C-alpha cells in the first residue's frame, strides 16, 4: 500500500446543531493533485480547515502523513482564501511572504537574511520577484493570489492545502498556478485544492473528492468524476452537469 498523505475517518462537524460535514471518509495518497468540488455550502473549506485543526470536529479522526496534524505542522502549507485578509494592511509583498517562515522560526526570533532569501526565491517561482517591495494594497487579484502561494511555498511543506486559488484570477495567473501545482507534484508533494470550475478538473487534477455535506465520492478523476456522481453532488442541475460531462471527455 502506498503512503497516505491524508487519512480522514468519520469526520463530522456541526455548526450549532446543523451538520456541516457528515461522516466524511477520505484517503489521499502521497504525490497527488487533488481537487475538492461541491456546491456552495457543501463544506469544502470546512473540510480543509478541520484537517488543519482550525475547526474542532464533533467526531472523527484526521491523520496527516500518518500522524495527527499538531505533530506534522511543519510539513503542511496553507493558502487561505484571498478575500480572508485586509489587503490594505500596511506591509510589503516580501514581508507577507516571509510570514510563511514564522512557524519554523518559533517564538521571539525575528526573520533575517535566510528568511529573506527564501521569500525572494519563492517570489521568483510564482513570477513576481519584481514586486517584492510593493505595498500589498497595490496588487491585482492575480498578484495577491501569487503572494499567498509564495507564502505557502516558503513553508517548505510536503503537503499543501489551497482554498480556491483560482478564484477571480486572470488566465495568465491560472496557467502559472497550474504549472506550479504540476511542479509541486513532480517534486513528490501532495496538493489539495478547493476548486469551482468543473470543466478543468480532469485537465488539472488526478484525484478528486466530491462533497456535499456527505462525501459523495473520492478517488482518481478517471474513476469517480462521473456524471452520476456529479448529479448526486450538485442535485438536479442537469444542463450544467452535461457541460461538465463533456469536459470530462476531453472536449474543452
Amino acid at each position: 500500500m502506498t503512503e497516505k498523505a491524508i487519512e480522514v475517518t468519520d469526520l463530522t462537524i456541526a455548526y450549532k446543531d446543523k451538520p456541516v460535514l457528515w461522516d466524511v471518509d477520505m484517503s489521499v495518497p502521497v504525490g497527488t493533485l487533488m481537487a475538492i468540488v461541491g456546491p456552495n455550502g457543501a463544506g469544502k473549506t470546512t473540510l480543509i480547515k478541520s484537517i488543519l485543526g482550525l475547526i474542532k470536529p464533533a467526531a472523527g479522526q484526521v491523520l496527516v502523513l500518518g500522524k495527527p496534524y499538531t505533530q506534522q505542522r511543519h510539513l503542511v502549507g496553507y493558502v487561505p482564501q484571498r478575500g480572508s485578509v485586509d489587503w490594505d494592511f500596511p506591509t510589503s509583498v516580501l514581508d507577507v511572504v516571509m510570514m510563511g517562515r514564522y512557524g519554523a522560526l518559533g517564538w521571539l526570533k525575528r526573520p533575517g537574511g535566510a528568511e529573506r532569501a527564501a521569500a525572494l526565491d519563492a517570489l521568483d517561482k510564482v513570477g513576481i520577484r519584481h514586486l517584492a517591495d510593493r505595498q500589498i494594497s497595490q496588487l491585482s487579484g492575480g498578484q495577491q493570489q501569487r503572494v499567498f502561494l509564495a507564502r505557502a511555498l516558503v513553508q517548505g511543506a510536503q503537503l499543501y492545502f489551497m482554498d480556491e486559488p483560482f478564484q477571480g484570477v486572470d488566465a495568465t495567473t491560472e496557467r502559472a498556478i497550474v504549472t506550479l501545482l504540476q511542479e509541486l507534484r513532480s517534486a513528490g508533494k501532495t496538493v489539495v485544492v478547493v476548486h469551482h470550475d468543473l470543466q478543468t478538473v480532469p485537465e488539472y487534477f488526478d484525484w478528486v473528492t466530491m462533497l456535499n455535506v456527505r462525501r459523495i465520492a473520492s478517488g482518481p478523476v478517471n474513476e469517480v468524476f462521473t456524471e452520476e456522481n456529479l448529479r448526486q453532488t450538485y442535485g438536479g442541475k442537469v444542463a450544467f452537469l452535461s457541460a461538465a460531462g463533456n469536459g470530462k471527455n476531453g472536449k474543452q
Partner: protein
Amino acid sequence: MDISQLLSDLFFDYTLRTVALGALILGMVSGMLGAFAVLRKQSLLGDAISHAALPGIVLAFLLTRQREPVVLILGALIAGWLATLFMIAVTRTTRIKNDTALGLVLSVFFGMGLMLLTFAQRLPDATQAGLDKFLFGQAATLLQSDVITMGIIGALALGLLVVFWKEFKLITFDPEFAASLGFPVRGLDVLLTTLLVIAIVIGLQTVGVVLMSAMIVAPAAAARQWTDRLSLMILLGGLFGAVAGVSGTLISSTAERLPTGPVIVLCISVIVLFSMLFATNRGLVWNWLRSKQNRRKLRARAVLADLNTLAMQHPHEAHGHSVAVLRTMSANPDGVSYALKQLRERGHAYEVSTDVWALTDEGLAQASRNQKEETE
C-alpha cells in the same frame, strides 16, 4: 505668556512638568497600541473599554475607601478587562453581532458607572470628592508618583509589544494562517487586547473615560496616512500621541480653567485633519493635485491627437488650425489653450499666427506613437 516662558516652565515648573510628562506617556502608549486596535478593526473597542472602566473606578473606591490612583487604576483595569471578555462571550454564544455587543457593553457598564458615581457622591464624608473628574479627566491632579506608575505600566506594555512583535503582526494580518502555523491565536488576541486595556487605563485620569477612545483611534488614523509600513505606523502613532499630549498640556496651561484632556484631544484632532488633507500618497490635497496633473496630461494628449487628425486632412502638415476648431473637438473646451501651451513647451506644437496652431515634426511623431500605443 510667551513661548520661552512656557518652555522654561515645562522643565522647571513642577506641576506643568509632571502633567506634560504624564500626557506624553499616555499619548505615546495609546498611540502605539491604538494602531493595532485600528488595524484589527477594533477602533470602537477602545471606546467601550474606556466607558466600561468607570464602574471599576467607583467600585474600587467604594470597596477600599481610598483614592490612591493605583487602586482606582486597578479597578479600571479589571472592569475594562471584564467588559472585553463579556463582549467576546456575547458574540460567541449568541447571535448578537460584534457592533451590537460593543454598544451593549458600553452603555450597560457606563450606565452602571454613572449610577455608582451618583451613589458615591451622596456619601456623607468628603473622601469621594473628585471621583467625577474621571469623566473628562483632570490632569492637574497628576502627581509625580502617578506619572512614575504610568511610566512603568506603559513601558511594560510597550516591552511586550516589542517581544511579541512578529506574532502580533501575524495575528493582525491573517489570524487563520497564524493558527495553521500553530500560534495560540486566542491567547495572543487576549494579550494584545489586555495591552490595549492598559493603554486606555493609563490615560483615564488625564483625559477621562468619555474622550479616551480618541487617543486610541486618532493617532493611528493620522499615522496610517503617512506610511505603508507597520513599524513606521506604530512609531508615528506614538509620536503623534506624545506631541498631542505635550502640546495640549502646554496650551491648556496658558489659560485659566482650560481643561487639559479635551485640549489634548483637540490637538490630536488637528494632527488627524492635517494628515488627512496633506499626507503624501493618501492625503486628499495630494490626491487632488495628482489627479489634476493626470487630467492635464491626458488633455494635452487629446489635443495632440486632435491636431494630428486635422493635419491628416490637409495637403501639407504645416497648415494651421484655429483654437475654435480644436475647442469643438475637445471634451473639455476650457482646457484647450492650457493644453496647447503645454504642447508648445514640449516642442510638439507652435502657434502659426494668433490662435492658429500646427504640430511640429516632433509633435507628429509623438502623435503617431500615442496612436500606436492606444491600438495595442
